């Protein structure tokens, strides 16, 4: 579901809740209003009743029928008023109110009828008068009781309303919580996923991000997919950059390799010429040896060409268990002739019993060759290249230290040497070598660092986690 839809639905549900609460509040207030009116009517009735009783008392004291007529007149007025107020007084919330109202009205009318009888008979029998007095008393008591009851009712209703209001608010909060669970927690979770992906991209772990393929259902998932696509594109670009960096190294390597080919070619040529010119003098054994030599030399050429081709090929990253010493030796092999031509002596020291590493061998080779070429170029008059491979004690990192005795790197350019397209070799450099190396090592969860002083040579340190470390982590 899209976030837009979720928000609209959540808002609609909340609006509906508020409407329901308003409706109940309206009904409650209306009930209170009715009760208050009822109280008002009964209160008025009470006052009139008191006057009526006063008239009744006067009648009994002075036997003045005028007083009774006054009573009847007042009573009739009240009765009419009560009847007209019945519309809103009667249908109260509490069932007994209607009954009480009818009793009240009935008793009042009965009382008035009795008073009328007394007036009409002129000389009323004492039992009639007694009945009138009792009924008057009953009416007053009932009315007062009613008033008290209604007042209590108002209190009850107001208290109930307060409770109901608090209950409704609690309900809204509860429903908010449910809405949160169903509508917004997903959004937060997805934003969390997005955050982790962005972090991975920034750490260069593009492959993990690019691998995620999702079909987006909402805006955040669309964003997540965009990040994933971006990572895929970046990965592709990085692969291309890797290849470009490799081709740049290859350009430097190739002259060395071409010369390396020169020797076996020369050997074959010499053997062939000797074979031809001394054919009659050579014994069968000699001839056999010569042909064997030709074969060995052609194998040598094949190997050189294969190594070069293998290095230049664009490959998908393939992580495998590798011995770091093999990789180092292969890399030195590829630059071997270049070292010789450049009068650079190499001194390799590889510690024994190194733990295996889980790497893409050709990528690590690319890094090493790049570092070797840089070192050779830093020693135009020749020099020494020290390659030390050892395990850092305690943390399971395999360390390769590549130290040259060359010109060193100027302090002010040192912070930029891993930046893409930064080069100190003007048009001869692409500025890709070290930045690509940096990317490769970071993808292997390793680190690459440099120490250099002008005129005193440069040391590159490459650290890669060994499989021992990985197992330790798990």
């Amino acid at each position, binding site marked *: 579901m899209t976030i837009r839809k979720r928000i609209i639905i959540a808002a609609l549900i909340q609006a509906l809740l508020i409407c329901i609460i308003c409706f109940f509040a309206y009904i409650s207030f209306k009930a209170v209003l009715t009760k208050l009116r009822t109280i008002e009517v009964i209160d008025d009735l009470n006052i009139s009743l008191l006057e009526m009783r006063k008239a009744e008392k006067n009648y009994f004291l002075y036997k003045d029928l005028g007083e009774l007529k006054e009573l009847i007149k007042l009573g009739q007025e009240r009765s009419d008023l009560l009847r007209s107020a019945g519309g809103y007084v009667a249908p109260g919330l509490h069932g007994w109110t209607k009954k009480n109202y009818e009793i009240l009205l009935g008793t009042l009318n009965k009382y008035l009828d009795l008073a009328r009888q007394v007036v009409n008979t002129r000389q009323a029998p004492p039992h009639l008068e007694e009945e009138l007095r009792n009924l008057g008393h009953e009416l007053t008591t009932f009315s007062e009781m009613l008033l008290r009851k209604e007042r209590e009712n108002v209190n009850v209703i107001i208290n109930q309303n307060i409770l109901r209001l608090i209950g409704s608010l609690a309900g809204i909060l509860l429903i908010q919580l449910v809405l949160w669970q169903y509508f917004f927690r997903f959004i937060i979770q997805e934003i969390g996923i997005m955050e982790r992906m962005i972090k991975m991209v920034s750490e260069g772990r593009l492959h993990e991000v690019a691998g995620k393929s999702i079909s987006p259902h909402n805006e955040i998932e669309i964003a997540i997919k965009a990040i994933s696509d971006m990572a895929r594109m970046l990965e592709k670009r990085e692969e291309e950059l890797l290849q470009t960096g490799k081709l740049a190294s290859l350009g430097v390597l190739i002259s060395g390799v071409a*010369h390396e080919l*020169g*020797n076996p*070619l*020369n*050997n*074959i*040529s*010499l*053997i062939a*010429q*000797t074979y031809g*010119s*001394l054919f009659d*003098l050579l014994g069968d054994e000699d001839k056999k040896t010569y042909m064997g*030599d030709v074969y060995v*030399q052609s194998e040598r050429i094949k190997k050189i060409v294969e190594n070069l081709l293998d290095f230049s090929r664009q490959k998908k990253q393939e992580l495998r268990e590798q011995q770091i010493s093999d990789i180092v030796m292969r890399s030195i092999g590829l630059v071997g002739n270049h070292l*010789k*031509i450049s*009068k650079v002596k190499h001194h390799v020291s590889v510690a024994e019993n190194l733990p295996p590493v889980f790497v893409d061998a050709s990528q690590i080779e690319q890094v090493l060759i790049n570092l070797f070429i840089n070192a050779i170029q830093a020693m135009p008059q020749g020099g020494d290249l020290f390659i030390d491979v050892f395990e850092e004690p305690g943390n399971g990192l395999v360390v390769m230290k590549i130290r040259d005795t060359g010109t060193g790197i100027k302090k002010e350019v040192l912070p930029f040497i891993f930046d893409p397209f930064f080069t100190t070799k003007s048009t001869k450099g692409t500025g890709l070598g070290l930045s690509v190396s940096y990317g490769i090592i970071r993808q292997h969860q390793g680190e690459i660092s440099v120490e250099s002083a002008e005129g005193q040579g440069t040391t590159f340190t490459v650290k890669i986690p060994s499989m021992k470390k990985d197992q330790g982590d798990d």
Partner: protein
Amino acid sequence: MAQKILVIDDEKIVCDMAKKILENEGYEVETFMNSQMALERIRQQRFDLVITDLKMENVSGMDILREVNKLYPQTKVIMLTAYATLDATIEAIRERIYDFFPKPVKIEELKNSVKKALGS
């Protein structure tokens, strides 16, 4: 007495073939794959001709050339190389190189050059 030729090349086959061919021409041939050892040999023994590779570990063909010129100005030096830059060639000419052969070497040309160098 046969004329003495010293051949220095870190490729065994170059040494072997040169020895075979030149001995067949009637010269006395010594070969060294290790240029350092060759340099020491030069200091002990005078050769009539030295054929050396240019690029070698430790001691280069140019070092050999300089040593020969210093010790035996009469001895001629022929240089073989798979790696003939203009700079290296000019430097070699300045050091009085007798002849210069790019690899792969043509044996007939080398034989002729040796003959001319040794005046036979």
